[in-house]
């Protein structure tokens, strides 16, 4: 395969992809003379329209995406993004609305925000939601800020936040940025929070526990009520990372488990695109004790009329320009309404079924560190393949050859050589079987011909990249 050249390398003096009408007024130099042009880039590429079209089309074809095949990144919930969502988000009155428009002119938009917040509260059993946080990590930070504001109002923000070793990797940094010291809580042999370890550490210096449920092993924290009772008994609060909510919808509600505050990822559970396809959104839900602290403005409904309301003296303030990533909320609302309550439950049931189908089909070929039943994802390891000097990296690279995106690698840290696999509900049995077949072939190759794994991928656009050099000496821009 020929390497696609950079657009700068395609450039040729004099080629262009635009044509202006003939100049029929005197030429003005003031714009070019006074405009702060950057001098780092001497020349912009000069290319024809067709060259631009072909260049970006070829690049897009080298990309792997959910529209091409299974994308089983664990805890990322890479489900299909229905085109209906995009269609709704592109309705001109959504697409062209301006944040400075008069509230009277955007009643529909406000209704979207309020409806979504209410529906998320219903799905999770929380009392109130804000749809403003721009992504999961910001949602976590907002959640921790709410906890801090609440505790400060009671006189003492406290010092520590507990985070289980099976939680999401962003949790410790969110707690840290919010000024808390992080204490890791160990998992027991079932892969759930070790209650004894928690009890031993719990005291009145503890602000909160941040718990992911189901955790990154895909295991449901079946003692979540005991965990939250214990933390509450000493005046601490419970934060739940809702990134894995795709396993629970319509089946059980964090609000019933003693959770005080949580975030959701609309770009995971609620089928809006990850990254490149648009920004994310990480709405935060709270129990009523935290509601006064929610960020402003909030959308309220008065006499059949929607309005932004900012008169909340205890609020932590603004956390996002304007009103969050509005069109992402529109897409997620389209999803929730098109699924309906029974549909959402079916989503979770099928996500769990698909994951267990993969787990059961591969349990002989790949080691499972924890035998506890799992929900929407399962964590294999490379333990059996290690005997043949084959690592999870080699397995992941070989999967690229066989037409699948690799699972999340080397996380959670409590499983060495982890392959955290989450197929989501949108994969058909036929597509799951393709993945299972590929994994079985890899297990066989590890025994019979490990070299083919160690030198994989063989059929991709680029082979194994030198990640270490890329990280040590990053070249972030083109230079002639």
């Amino acid at each position, binding site marked *: 395969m020929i390497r696609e050249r950079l657009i700068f390398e395609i450039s040729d003096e004099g080629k262009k992809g635009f044509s202006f009408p003939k100049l029929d007024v005197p030429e003005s130099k003031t714009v070019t003379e006074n405009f702060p042009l950057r001098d780092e880039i001497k020349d912009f590429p000069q290319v024809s329209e067709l060259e631009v079209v072909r260049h970006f089309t070829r690049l897009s074809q080298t990309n792997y995406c959910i529209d091409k095949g299974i994308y089983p990144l664990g805890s990322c919930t890479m489900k299909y993004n229905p085109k209906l969502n995009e269609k709704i988000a592109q309705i001109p009155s959504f697409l062209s609305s301006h944040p400075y428009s008069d509230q009277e002119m955007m009643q529909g938009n406000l209704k979207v925000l309020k409806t979504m917040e209410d529906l998320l509260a219903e799905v999770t059993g929380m009392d109130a939601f804000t749809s403003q946080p721009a992504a999961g990590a910001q949602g976590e930070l907002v959640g921790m800020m709410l906890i801090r504001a609440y505790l400060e109002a009671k006189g003492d923000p406290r010092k520590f936040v507990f985070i289980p070793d099976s939680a999401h990797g962003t949790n410790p940094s969110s707690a840290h940025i919010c000024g808390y010291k992080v204490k890791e809580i160990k998992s027991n042999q079932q892969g759930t929070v070790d209650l004894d370890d928690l009890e031993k550490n719990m005291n009145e210096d503890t602000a909160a526990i941040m718990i992911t449920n189901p955790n990154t092993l895909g295991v449901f924290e079946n003692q979540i009520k005991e965990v939250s009772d214990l933390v509450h008994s000493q005046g601490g609060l419970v934060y739940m990372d809702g990134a894995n909510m795709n396993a629970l919808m319509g089946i059980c509600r964090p609000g019933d488990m003693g959770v005080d505050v949580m975030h959701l990822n609309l770009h995971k559970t609620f089928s809006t695109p990850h990254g490149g396809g648009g920004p994310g959104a990480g709405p935060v839900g709270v129990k009523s004790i935290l509601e006064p602290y929610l960020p402003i403005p909030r959308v309220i409904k008065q006499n059949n009329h929607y309005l932004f309301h900012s008169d909340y003296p205890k609020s932590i303030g603004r956390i996002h320009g304007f009103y969050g990533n509005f069109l992402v909320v529109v897409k997620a609302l389209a999803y929730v309404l098109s699924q309906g309550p029974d549909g959402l439950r079916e989503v979770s049931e099928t996500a769990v079924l698909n994951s267990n189908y993969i787990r059961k089909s591969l349990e002989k070929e790949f080691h499972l560190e924890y035998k506890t039943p799992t929900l929407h994802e399962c964590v294999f390891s490379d333990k059996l393949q290690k005997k043949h000097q084959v690592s999870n990296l080699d397995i992941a690279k070989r999967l690229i050859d066989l037409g699948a995106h690799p699972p999340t690698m*080397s996380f959670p*840290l409590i499983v*060495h050589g982890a392959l955290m696999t989450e197929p989501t509900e949108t994969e058909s049995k036929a597509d799951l079987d393709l993945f299972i077949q590929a994994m079985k072939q890899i297990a066989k190759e590890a025994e019979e011909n490990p070299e083919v794994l160690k030198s994989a991928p063989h059929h991709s656009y680029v082979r194994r990249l030198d*990640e*270490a050099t890329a*990280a*040590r000496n990053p070249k972030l821009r083109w230079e002639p």
Partner: protein
Amino acid sequence: MYPDDFHYTKDHEWIQVKGDEATVGITDFAQSQMGDVVYVELPKVGDELDAHQTFGVVESVKAVSDVFSPVAGKVTQVNEGLNDDPEVLNKDPHSKGWIIKLKVKDKSELEELMSASEYEKYLEGLEE
């Protein structure tokens, strides 16, 4: 593989004591588990460390890990060379890849650490 005059921690740091001064680094096992190291965050000379206290961070293409001080002491020197050549941690973890030097506060703390043969046994346990 593991020098006899080093002591080892369960978190895979080594410490070599000569007189009052000790050199601290991460073990060959640690570097092999982490993969290619791309960045090392060093403490400041003069920092006072407790035993088990985090004094630095090692980042590889795979993971970010804290490094803990095996004993209490005061940082007397840091391996500035790691800023430009973090890969030394992979190539020579037990010698050129040292991370900090410490003035040890209380040598009796060394007794709580593992010897080379104990550490090797500990690693065998982890492999199972």
